[in-house]
């Protein structure tokens, strides 16, 4: 078990290094005018050159990357080139908003997709048709279109929720909930419809297995078969889908945060990328990759716990 975790973490570290280098490499090519952008239109060429030296922009790519990597290993991610805000602080203030949103959405997806998927698999009939059609429709509607529809309907017409975030430190839990409800729904719909479809097929597959027939023949109640045995065997499929959705959501949340003006990581990513604020972009990338690695690890561990066969491989 310990060996399994260590192997996973080591693989994660390799991915982390590869992604940071690749990102840095890509940013390098769009960094030619950063000093000018920081100093503004009226700065002299000398000032620009001085700033470039100060930021190390005059160094070759490998030297710049190693300098950044060296500091990052010690936990020093530097400061934003444009605002001077420490990268760690910038991320620490925005991460809770994004994570609250994404985790809330994932939990909702997990519950709703399981309930709908199982209902469709067991009852079949109209529920099944609704779930099947929903999967197609849900996949076809992009999250941002849904977000705009939700805002128009629930914020502008009915005035039930704020159209843009009103999260503030002194705002309290109800303001958080109100601000996050519409974005969470916009994120959840695709996941629920897609997830329900996956759970449905996994459960149907399990229900056709011999062990279910055996259990039934031994007179075990249908409910117990379903929840104790079938669901447990079908869970790995669901979990894998869920983890993929979680990772996909870290991308989808970028657009959702723009529409709802949520001051989260996605918003920070968009702003820092358009400005070419390399320390901030790198910070966002690192944190996101770490989150992805942790989620994957957790899913592997849960799968192992649910199904001992996975642990061995």
């Amino acid at each position, binding site marked *: 078990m310990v060996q399994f975790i260590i192997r996973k973490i080591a693989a994660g570290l390799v991915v982390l290094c590869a992604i940071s280098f690749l990102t840095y490499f890509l940013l390098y090519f769009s960094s030619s005018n950063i000093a000018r952008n920081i*100093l*503004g239109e009226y700065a002299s060429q000398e000032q620009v050159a001085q700033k470039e030296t100060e930021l190390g922009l005059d160094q070759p790519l490998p030297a710049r990357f190693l300098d950044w990597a060296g500091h990052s290993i010690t936990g020093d991610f530097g400061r934003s080139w444009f*605002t001077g805000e420490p990268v760690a602080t910038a991320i620490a203030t925005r991460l809770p908003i994004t994570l609250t949103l994404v985790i809330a959405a994932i939990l909702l997806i997990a519950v709703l997709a399981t309930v709908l998927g199982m209902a469709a698999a067991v009852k079949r009939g109209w529920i099944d048709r609704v779930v099947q059609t929903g999967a197609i429709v849900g996949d076809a509607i992009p999250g941002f279109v849904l977000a705009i529809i939700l805002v128009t309907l629930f*914020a502008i017409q009915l005035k039930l929720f704020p159209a843009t975030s009103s999260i*503030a430190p002194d705002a309290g839990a109800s303001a958080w909930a109100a601000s996050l409800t519409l974005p969470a729904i916009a994120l959840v719909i695709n996941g629920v419809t897609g997830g329900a479809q996956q759970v449905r097929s996994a459960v149907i597959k399990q229900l056709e297995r011999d062990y279910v027939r055996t259990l039934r023949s031994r007179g075990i109640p249908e409910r117990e078969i379903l929840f104790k045995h079938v669901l447990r065997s079908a869970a790995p499929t669901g979990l894998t889908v869920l983890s993929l959705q979680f990772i996909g959501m870290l991308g989808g949340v970028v657009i959702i945060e723009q529409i709802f003006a949520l001051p989260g990581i996605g918003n920070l990513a968009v702003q820092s990328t358009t400005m070419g604020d390399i320390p901030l972009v790198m910070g966002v990338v690192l944190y996101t990759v770490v989150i992805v690695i942790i989620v994957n690890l957790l899913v592997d561990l849960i799968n192992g716990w649910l199904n001992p066969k996975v642990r061995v491989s």
Partner: protein
Amino acid sequence: MKFGPKAAGAAIFLSAALALTGCGGGGSATGSGNGGAATTSLTIAELGDLPSFDPVDAHIGHTMPYYQAVYDTLLIRDADGTISPMLAAEKSWNADNTVLTLKLRTDAKFTDGTPVDAAAVKANLDHFQQAKGRDVYQVASMASVAVVDPSTVAITLSTPDPAFEYYLTQAAGFVASPKAIGTPGIKTDPVGSGPYKLDTASSVKGSQYVYTKNPDYWNKDLQKFEKVTIKSLPDITARTNALVSGQIDGALLDPKTGKQAEGAGLVLTKSEVDWHGILLYDRDGKINPEMANVKVRQAINYAFDRKTILDQQFLGQGTPTSQVFGPDSGAFVADLDNRYSYDPAKAKQLLAEAGYPEGFTLKIPTMAGFEALNAVYSQQLSDIGIKVQLESVPQANYVGDMAAGKFAAATFQLYQGEPWVAINQMISTSALYNPFKSTNPEIAALVEEVHVGGENSSELAKKVNTYVTENAWFAPLFRLNQMYYTSKKITVEPQLQQAVPSIYNYAPAK
């Protein structure tokens, strides 16, 4: 949405009951603005976050209101562009316009209790110059600041600067407490003498800043609200939604989103701030030898059907023009507006006279937001024989690439500032938007006249305007309307040459 008769009846009863209690209550202090007392709070949205509250980081344009709420400036620029006293009650220049003496008002105090005096002003100006922030060019001509007496400062310039008073109404004019300047704390917790104080507990970086009335403020006329909230909403959809849903009272939209706002009953305030067009940089023919010929540059000017492009691309929100100076800049020459009317035949003739009857190829950059416009411009130029090659440039590199002289011409949008500001932005040899440093004795002499012109500098700038228009240094197409929408709870006065109004321009609707 449809209600049954019972629900409708209940709603009527309820609203009648509310109306009655409202009448009987006798003037509540915190009216909501729905036909009752005037509102006491203002919530507006800006297009972006500010880097920090350090005045050194202040930058002309969209982020100014964030600073204006907490800091006073030495001079204030009224909505119509007139420069009036603020912290400096009186100003006077010496004979050759190189020493500006400011007499400060004595009743202003910073929110930490320190008085606003000559030493504080000197400390701020010196710090602004040394810290080399984004707008440090505003004090480029400043040689020294002297404390004459506790309420008088004398600013000596190394060379006359016709825009210096204007700069003292902008970033260079912000005065922060001398105890706070240069400390890291000022970045998030500003200490100024302004009409409002920042409420750090309710503010979130990157999202919103909340301000409350400064109880000790010297000018109650500038404190029209108990509470001011400025939200950062870079996304135009988010801005429109926030405005239409009533979450905010004012924001800058564009012609397309404006339709939606008008449908929701919001009030439009228009002002022409930017000019949009093509900057014909390569007047010496370094990249495109053809561009060195004035007839070629004039031909380009004749190629555009400005009115139609404006109607189609900007829903008619603006005015076609052939000059780069705005109507309120002082350097405006009315006749120049129609100098180059749409005339492709004349354009072809000019190209032929210049020796290019077959036209030539011109490479111009394009970026996100300019694609549709550049497609139209390419089409119009190809009609007169100029083949345009569009090269995509990342947004962050666009200005830098232009400034580095990588393109002979480029589509852009610039604000129409004070004449001296505008000259140093795109005409003088040190201007960023004059990448090839185009000059000749004639224009250099005209620019110098403005430089030393003192009070006549605006009038003298008309000659510069005429020169660059006649010699087709640019291909200006139109002055665009900035479309600022407000709710009925407040009123706003547009600020000259600013896309967003200054914080002082808002008032509760009566």
